[in-house]
């Protein structure tokens, strides 16, 4: 086995989150501490907060709330004195923070580390849509000046949907089926933002945001927080008899500027990150029992079925028609409800996906009818930026591989 | 030494509105098949000028960096204190020491630009000059001036070599007359009594300038194959023609106002372009502009080169069209944003 791997070296021993939604009555700090306290409680054999030696803080600060220093966590969670690094990588922030915490623990620097993600998007009007006019949309420095009003998120991802439709004959109804599946499971998840089912017709008849994406193809604007505790594998038993092990991680980026991208039927960073993660984990797509994908938009998730290798390039529409992404299908995806139904508080999403993996791999997914049977290996993915600029993937398992 | 036109280009917007639809919106009737252009909501005087200028430069076939000066004639510059020509300059690849001259406040500014440009070429200061006339006229909704007010641009590259048409001579005539004005605080143009403006304004000045031109060059009306005029009203050229001894066959080819309306400073140049598209070598064109007590009359003679550089650009833009309704016309012209409140 190559030396450049963290496989089996790190374990997740605690994970906690809060119900996502429009949490006007909870402040940023309220959410963060609630998630953290739930996380501490979830450690089977208990943990003393003083054992946490370092923290990685995922916060994309996407609407300029100015919560962007590690000191914020020290204050809110009572963790004064320990090293806290704030991570930002657009929507991939959560997974990236987790990845870096794992590296530090695997390198032997810390025994126990905390990863906390928190995002408040609804304290300012417009939420993410306001990004269109805010300099925060300098995610796109050049094309934005070029176009003066920046491309919105739906537009940037919709470009991939259109090309995929043109080249492979996918239709809007296939995107709709993905949203329907997400709501089907989100409705069962007490932590979801939206808890109702929808139909394909609902999706197709919804107002168009940015053709080919309509209102029900787009994830909502959500507040939320999540936290996980990672530790060295060989001390995991101190905290729980069923730790979840980190097998591999991958991260890749491509140009921000839309016209410098090469292929609009593939989200290339996801392909590259998956390659890295699979190699480090020593598994292939067929070994993945379930996945938490980044379905900021329905077309994104559909394209991910191909990019991550769950089906062949161009065959996502068949994959979807055959319901392979449901429990009982080839690769259940987004059984939490995904970003579409569970919600997408930018930085907290990645960490919340780790929480979902933790629950599924230990057979304790909350909500009835939401447990993937015999889950052993799970994959968690974020895609960040307007249009896939970056993707971060982590593969976890409930035993060492 | 002759100075003249090396190349020309036009720009006509895509959308049109029928004057009968416009009249109907106000409960009136306009039973003639006249239509005018409607600029798309994202166009303005400078974008139209830029496309016309690029077409002219492509047609002239010259190296853009040899253009020594840009003369921009308009009454609707987006800025009162930034030169339209200096913004236009950033859109074509000219040298930083190219002179930028804005001539404004009159629909005659396009022909005045031509005169200034020719003077600069004659004095040797520049080799080629770019003359652009561009306007986006909007009339007050419900007024008479609204009928024909429209948008368009035309550009000429002028020089001494490789001419497709020479300017044989110019005669200008100007008095203190005015009939149509717009002050700094007024949003829309205003006009006084129509007969007064027509007789003492348009007809008097155009006829005088035309007569002076013919005397100066010792030419007679039938020495001219074509005659083109500014078209603030579609009946005026006919009235002028009669008094200058011109026939309908001479003026009809240039009556582009029927299809595009009155495009301000570019009106007379668009009419010239329409005729240049068709003119054969060694044909003489009379061109007379008018605005507010001033007229410039030109005698333009096509050269042998015009065949080699034949283009049908006016027809190409004219046939690219789609009709919009009066509502869209108002929105695209941003009339609502010009109103107070």
């Amino acid at each position, binding site marked *: 086995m190559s030396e450049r791997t963290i496989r089996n070296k790190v374990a997740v021993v605690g994970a906690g989150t809060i119900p996502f939604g*429009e949490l006007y009555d909870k402040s940023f700090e309220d959410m963060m501490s609630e998630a953290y306290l739930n996380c501490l409680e979830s450690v089977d054999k208990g943990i003393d907060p003083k054992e946490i030696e370092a923290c990685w803080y995922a916060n994309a600060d996407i609407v300029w709330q100015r919560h962007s220093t590690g000191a914020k966590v020290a204050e809110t969670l009572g963790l004064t004195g320990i090293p806290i690094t704030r991570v930002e990588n657009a929507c991939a922030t959560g997974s990236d923070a987790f990845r870096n915490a794992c590296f530090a623990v695997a390198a032997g620097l810390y025994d126990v580390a905390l990863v906390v993600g928190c995002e408040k998007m609804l304290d*300012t*009007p*417009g939420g993410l*849509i306001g990004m*269109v*006019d*805010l*300099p925060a949309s300098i995610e796109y*420095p*050049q*094309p934005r*000046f*070029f*176009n*003066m*009003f920046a*491309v*919105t998120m739906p*537009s940037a991802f919709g*470009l*991939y949907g*259109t*090309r995929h439709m*043109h080249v492979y004959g996918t239709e809007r109804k296939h995107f709709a089926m993905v949203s329907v599946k997400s709501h089907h499971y989100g409705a069962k998840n007490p932590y979801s933002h*939206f*808890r*109702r089912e929808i139909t394909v017709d609902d999706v197709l008849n919804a107002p*168009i*945001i*940015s*053709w*080919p*994406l309509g*209102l029900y193809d787009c994830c*909502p*604007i959500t507040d939320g927080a999540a936290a996980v505790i990672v530790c060295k594998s060989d001390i995991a038993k101190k905290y729980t008899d069923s730790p979840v092990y980190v097998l591999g991680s991958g991260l890749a980026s491509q*140009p921000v*500027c839309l*016209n*410098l991208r090469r292929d*609009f039927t593939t989200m290339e960073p996801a392909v590259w990150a998956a390659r890295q993660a699979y190699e480090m984990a020593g598994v292939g797509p067929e070994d993945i029992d379930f996945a938490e994908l980044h379905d900021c938009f329905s077309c994104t998730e559909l394209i991910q079925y191909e990019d991550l290798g769950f089906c062949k390039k161009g065959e996502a529409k068949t994959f979807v028609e055959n319901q392979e992404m449901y429990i009982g299908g080839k690769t259940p995806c987004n059984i939490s409800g995904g970003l579409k139904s569970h919600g997408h508080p930018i930085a907290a999403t990645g960490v919340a996906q780790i929480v979902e993996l933790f629950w599924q791999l230990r057979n304790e997914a909350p909500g009835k009818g939401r447990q993937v049977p015999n889950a052993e290996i799970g994959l968690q993915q974020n895609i960040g930026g307007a249009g896939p600029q970056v993707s971060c993937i982590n593969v976890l398992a409930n035993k060492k591989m | 030494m002759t100075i003249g036109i090396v190349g020309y280009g036009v720009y006509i917007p*895509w959308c049109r509105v029928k004057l009968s639809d416009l009249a109907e919106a106000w409960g009136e009737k306009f039973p003639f098949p006249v239509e005018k252009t409607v600029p798309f*909501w*994202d*166009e*303005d005087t*400078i*974008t139209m000028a*830029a*496309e016309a200028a690029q077409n002219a430069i492509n047609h002239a076939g010259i190296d853009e960096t040899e253009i020594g000066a840009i003369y921009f004639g308009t009454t609707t510059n*987006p800025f009162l204190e930034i030169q339209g020509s200096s*913004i236009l300059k950033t*859109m*074509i*690849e000219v040298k930083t020491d190219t002179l930028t001259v804005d001539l404004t406040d009159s629909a005659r500014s396009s022909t005045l630009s031509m005169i200034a440009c020719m003077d600069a070429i004659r004095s040797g200061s520049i080799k080629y000059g770019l003359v652009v006339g561009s306007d986006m006229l909007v009339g007050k909704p419900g007024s008479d001036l609204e009928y024909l007010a429209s948008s368009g641009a035309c550009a000429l590259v002028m020089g001494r070599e490789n001419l497709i048409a020479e300017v044989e001579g110019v005669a200008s005539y100007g008095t203190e007359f005015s009939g149509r004005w717009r002050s700094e605080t007024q949003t829309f143009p205003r006009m006084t009594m129509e007969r007064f403006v027509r007789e003492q304004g348009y007809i008097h000045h155009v006829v005088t300038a035309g007569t002076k031109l013919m005397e100066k060059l010792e030419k007679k009306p039938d020495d001219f194959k074509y005659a083109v005029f500014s078209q603030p009203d579609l009946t005026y050229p006919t009235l002028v023609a009669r008094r200058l001894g011109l026939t309908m066959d001479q003026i009809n080819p240039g009556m582009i106002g029927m299809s595009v309306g009155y495009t301000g400073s570019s009106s007379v140049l668009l009419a010239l372009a329409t005729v240049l598209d068709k003119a054969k070598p060694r044909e003489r064109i009379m061109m007379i502009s008018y605005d507010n007590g001033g007229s410039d009359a030109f005698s333009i003679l096509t050269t042998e080169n015009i065949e080699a550089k034949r283009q049908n650009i006016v027809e*190409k833009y004219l046939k690219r069209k789609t009709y919009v309704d009066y509502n869209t016309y108002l929105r*695209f012209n*941003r009339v609502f*944003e010009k109103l107070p409140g």
Partner: protein
Amino acid sequence: MLTIIPICVSIGYSKSYRGDCMATAFPPYWRAIPGMHRLVGQKCKKCGKVNFPPRKNMICTYCGATEFDEVHISRRGKIVTYVVASRMPPGVIGPEAFAIIDTDDGARVSAWSTDCFPKDYGAKEGSPIKCDMPVELVIRVIGNPTPTPFYGFKFRPIME
């Protein structure tokens, strides 16, 4: 549970984060003028690909080289992919299509649409915008023309 519809035209949606200023008076826009007004690109001397928008100290996105020829990108091209955005900032009349365009000389640019009405979404018969459609780039006002216009390129269906 009600879904919250993100509304672009709402209070607090600041019409003009840039304040009331003219393009060349604002450094990032002034620097962007060669690309925005003249479609200048940088052709890599090593791999031949065109990098756009242009920059000083450019590093080729495709191969990492640092020597370039300045080129004017062709104004004609084909649509690679597009979306039709229905929600526009104030002062902008939508819906408008946004497309990635491969130009005839091998560069890739992005632009919003003009001189067409993409109201009919999708590749149905009669929709003005389709993948692989030939288009040309023209200079127009970008965004809201009032109080001050900014200029840049948009695409329109080719004139015959």
